[in-house]
């Protein structure tokens, strides 16, 4: 389809969004990610029945953790789309990139930068 999406989006493949644990996302932020989104299958269509629903709940939990430690819960999001929706994926990647750009860089990086 030759679709374009922003090059700053790095993809990490997992067998199912249900595999994504809280710590995986926190580590991404700890290592400087500005935003993270989970792209799960459409609700009701999980091959493992509830993986994407579990991921949804975890994302909600991660938001509270990121809020309390000052990184900001808005930097993480959950999206649902099917593997046939390449167009939608590109759209989400752009949407998320735009949102994170507005939020600015991960505050940890700003602080590290100011020490230099």
């Amino acid at each position, binding site marked *: 389809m030759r679709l374009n999406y922003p090059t700053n989006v790095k993809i990490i493949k997992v067998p199912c969004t249900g595999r994504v*644990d*809280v*710590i995986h996302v*926190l*580590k991404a*932020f*700890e290592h400087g990610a500005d935003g993270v989104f989970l792209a799960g299958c459409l609700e009701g269509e999980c091959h493992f029945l509830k993986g994407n629903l579990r991921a949804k709940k975890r994302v909600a939990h991660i938001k509270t*953790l990121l809020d*309390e*430690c*000052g*990184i900001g819960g808005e930097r993480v999001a959950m999206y649902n789309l099917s593997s046939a929706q390449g167009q939608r994926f590109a759209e989400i990647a752009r949407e998320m990139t735009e949102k994170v750009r507005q939020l600015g860089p991960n*505050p*940890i990086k700003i*602080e*590290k930068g*100011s*020490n230099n």
Partner: protein
Amino acid sequence: MIIANRKPFEEIVDMLKPYKRILLLGCNECVTVCAVGGAKEVAVLSSELAMYRAKEGQPIDIKEHVLERNCDPEYVEALIQVIGDREVILSMACGCGIQFVGERYRNIPVLPGVNTTFYGVTEEHGVWTERCQGCGNCILDKTMGICPVSRCAKSLFNGPCGGSQGGNCEVNKDTPCAWQLIVDRYKERNMLHRYLELQPIKDWSTSRDGGPRKRVREDLKI
């Protein structure tokens, strides 16, 4: 098992303010099962703290460690290899573990990362409820296996108070009334006559009222 809740993040941050090199200590037993102080929760808190302090411009060096149990001397002893240059231990074990580690390592503060709350069960994944208060003189044989000490807000022994409504406790509408549960169980087993047997006034000296408790088995002592 012993159930705990993680302390609010701000409280933990505040306790750790003076320190840079911390040991974040978890426990593999109850607090792992109730998802508050096992390896996973230690890793999550550690990551949160690292991010918070980095953002504040006060980086923190966290070592994570999880003991098999924090309430047995042989495991606590092994911590000696781990403590090294740490300035403080933030423990996510229950109150027993936190104190026991503190008793062994007196030259380093051992701070609580959790609020230890009750003895309970996993009602369903992610839901824990209280079942026992360790009163020291169990009466479950008389109350159809339902504990009025821990499950009745007033620890009543001879039937419900006047506030039992629709099967729920007047103190909290989401909590089943212990006495409703007991009476239902009597009925289920055709034993309602036992409900009429008066329970004598409880001697609370076997409970907390008698002071800290101790159990000794001479035959096991080395």
